[in-house]
């Protein structure tokens, strides 16, 4: 029982933190805010084209909103429940491949 309440409380905390962070008011997803290092760039290359297009649209829209010093109307904010990680699993795979490569280079 105690365990369950902890989980619920943690989820609520996450949601509160998510809304506090603010990028959802620009209509961005969590993965849109990743810093584009080499791993992320490689992962982006592996995404299907339409997913990249959607991401670019969200980013351009966010930049536009930021320039105009405004945010989206509240019903268009990204909801915590709808924020799927579309890029992170691929980035993790890229990092794993890179580590495998580095490991090999170190040993041979």
């Amino acid at each position, binding site marked *: 029982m105690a365990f369950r309440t902890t989980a619920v409380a943690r989820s609520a905390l996450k949601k509160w933190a998510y809304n506090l962070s603010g990028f959802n008011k620009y209509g961005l997803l969590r993965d849109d805010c990743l810093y584009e290092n080499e791993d992320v760039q490689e992962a982006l*290359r*592996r995404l*299907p084209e339409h997913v990249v297009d959607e991401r670019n649209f969200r980013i351009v829209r966010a930049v536009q909103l930021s320039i105009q010093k405004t945010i989206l109307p509240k019903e268009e904010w990204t909801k915590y429940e709808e924020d799927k990680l579309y890029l992170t699993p691929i980035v993790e795979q890229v990092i794993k*491949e890179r580590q*495998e*490569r580095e490991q*090999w280079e170190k040993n*041979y």
Partner: protein
Amino acid sequence: MSSKSLATPFIRHVTSRGYAQTAPVAKKEARLQTSVLPNKTFVAALDNGSPVTRLTIAFKAGSRYEPQTELGLAHVLRSAAGLSTKNSSAYMIRRQLTQIGASFTASGDREFVYYTVEATQDNLKTALEYLNKIVSNQEFRPWELTDNLPRLRYDIAALPPQDTACLLADSLQLSSLVQESKSDTTTYYGGELRKEMGGDLAHVALALQGAPASIPQSLALAVAARALGCGPVTKWGANNSPVAKAIGNIGPFAAAGFNVSYSDSGLFGVVLSVPKDEANAAVKAVANLLKQPLSADAIKAGKNQLKLQVLAEAEDGTSLAESLAAQGLFTGSAKSPLDIAREIDQLSTNDVSQAMSNASRSKLSMGSAGNLAFVPFVDEL
């Protein structure tokens, strides 16, 4: 992974320099063992005492199994060998095989795709492990396939136009297996395909219906194809074969008999490259030659040449391994090169002429590529 055409015969230099004085190896006849596993996998093993072990896995996944809407799939499949699979990444496959000095190739023809690994015996275990990882659970990650495209394009563009001509004649005759799943035999119709590519030469393949690989006629036709001629036998020498004599003195040209046998049908004929202006006379002469019986002497020469070809190709372990795999998939059994040589010896002149006259009763197929301005159409032959 690597293209066979680019392989440098490095070992030739090493052996000719370093080991020129090696003691002769005692000759023993290679033993061939075959069996069929409960899951219908055909296994053939040939122990020829070589320190290098080669293992070929062949699948019935050649171009004739391509659906009509996905033409070229067999090329992509072959070229994708060595890319990431569920068990291992492309990087690890490459590095591990390099580390043990193994060589991995994937090649394909109209019926099969072959994956071959060769390694020295002490490294065989790792090599087999990685061969297994390469052929099973391939993932075909879209970005890896896209990255692979330029290599595949180069691979196909590097095909000589003579091959294109043969392929065109070939594609007439082998209909796709996917559509005719009901019937076991392929019907031969004959016909013509032309691919205008420009240039100074016309490359033409003329063919008649051959024999499937499982029956003795295929061997007789292979003899006949060699008997028709295979270019000059001395470098820069005169070409004295029947097909060269039939074409006559038209300036530089190349012509050779060819015979291909598949599981249910075959193709037998001549492929020639001639200057575009002489194409008309040359193609007509060759078509005429195909209808006529060969002399006994030519057949005898053909038998000797084919025997040498079979035995010489068996010296190259990779092509031997692939040939054993193909034989198994075609006929359900495999023969050692020596057995095939013996069978060639046993063929009589009559067998060969009989097979040729059988073939000449079928309609002509013709595939042509290059400058086709003066190449006659198949109904004119």
